[in-house]
């Protein structure tokens, strides 16, 4: 109840204020503050995670809940039950930049725009133009949607 109230409060304060990737504050590996102030939509989050051109999390992670999507990867652990294992803030931190929790992990940082080696222009193989702003892999709202979906991945459904 208290957690919910706090979430609503921060929500209204941060209304329409999108936190840019460079300004995300970590508490350890967790990110308390919503990136948008708008609650995530789990339906959208599921789509982001299972669509190749979006999060494409399915390329590395399997999960019972999206068993209908073909070809689940095995590079990362299955995501069944992550909604119980991790808090919302922890899940947000994992999606924003999993390296804060798992040093040296192969899981990409989905909300980060700096510090890359030989950054390309998408999948073109060409250098990212200097004058073009770097887009994070997911938008702030997509991160919130994914986090909302991950929270639904519990064992007791």
């Amino acid at each position: 109840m208290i957690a919910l109230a706090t979430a609503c409060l921060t929500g209204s304060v941060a209304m329409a204020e999108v936190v840019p990737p460079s300004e995300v504050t970590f508490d350890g590996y967790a990110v308390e503050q919503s990136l948008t102030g708008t609650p995530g939509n789990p339906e959208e989050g599921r789509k982001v995670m299972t669509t190749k051109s979006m999060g494409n999390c399915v390329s590395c992670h399997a999960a019972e809940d999206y068993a209908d999507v073909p070809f689940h990867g095995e590079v990362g652990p299955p995501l069944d039950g992550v909604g119980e294992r991790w808090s919302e803030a922890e899940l947000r931190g994992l999606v924003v930049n999993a390296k804060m929790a798992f040093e040296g992990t192969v899981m990409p940082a989905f909300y980060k725009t700096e510090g890359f080696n030989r950054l390309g222009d998408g999948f073109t193989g060409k250098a990212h133009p200097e004058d073009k702003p770097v887009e994070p892999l997911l938008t702030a709202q997509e991160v919130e949607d994914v986090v909302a979906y991950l929270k639904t991945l519990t064992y007791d459904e």
Partner: protein
Amino acid sequence: LAFGAGAALADEDAELVINGEIEIVTKTDAPAHMDGMSTIMSGWRFRDSTTQMMEMDDFDNPAMLAVEDAREKWSTPVGSEDKSCADCHGEPEDMAGVKPVYPKWNEDAGEVRTMQMQMNDCRENRMGAEPWKYDAADALAMEALLSSVSRGMPVDVAIDGPGQSTWEQGKELYYARTGQLDLSCASCHEENYGNMIRADHLSQGQINGFPTYRLKNTKLNGVHSRFKGCVRDTRAETYSPGSPEFVALEMYVASRGNGLSVEGPAVRN
């Protein structure tokens, strides 16, 4: 349950014998310079059995058509000197043993050379012919021919001596994370071989089978083009085929296969 010849299952324990006579080592102890892993395996072990089968007989291996074309080119005089490869090198079979040690240090040139670089040196400086475009059809067909005559011989790329600094550079590139996905070759081919990444069964990214005929694009594919594709998939700026970086990376990756048999031209999906 009898597993028929065409069963489309990945068989990581299958053994490869080509044409019923050329025994190919597709799994062996890792060379001493690799501290990350103990066993090395050819990409052949990670393919489904239909794809595996295609490599077991030259009549079923689509790459062999290009090899036959290259055989003709081998003995066709070209260039201002009107010379053919055969004029200086004899039969392609006389080149058995060349492929396993490439890329290698060339003393006169003072650089590490891939086989394609060496072939182009002959074309430009000994035949007065145009160099072949890197990893394009002509170069790959000839590389496939010269690989085919060495099939079954162990890959044996030197990592010390004057080529060592190039090898070190290649090693650095292998472990360097690139692109917005921040992945290195090792992220996929050392830490995750055997795992599925979406629909792809990750191999160790060995190059003993190159050039490879890929069912996906139905042609021969060169080592550098494959590297380029993998680097691009990390959302990075790639290097170009023939670039010094890819030459160094090829040398390093080839040496990770020291002990596997030369297998090219292999069939992959």
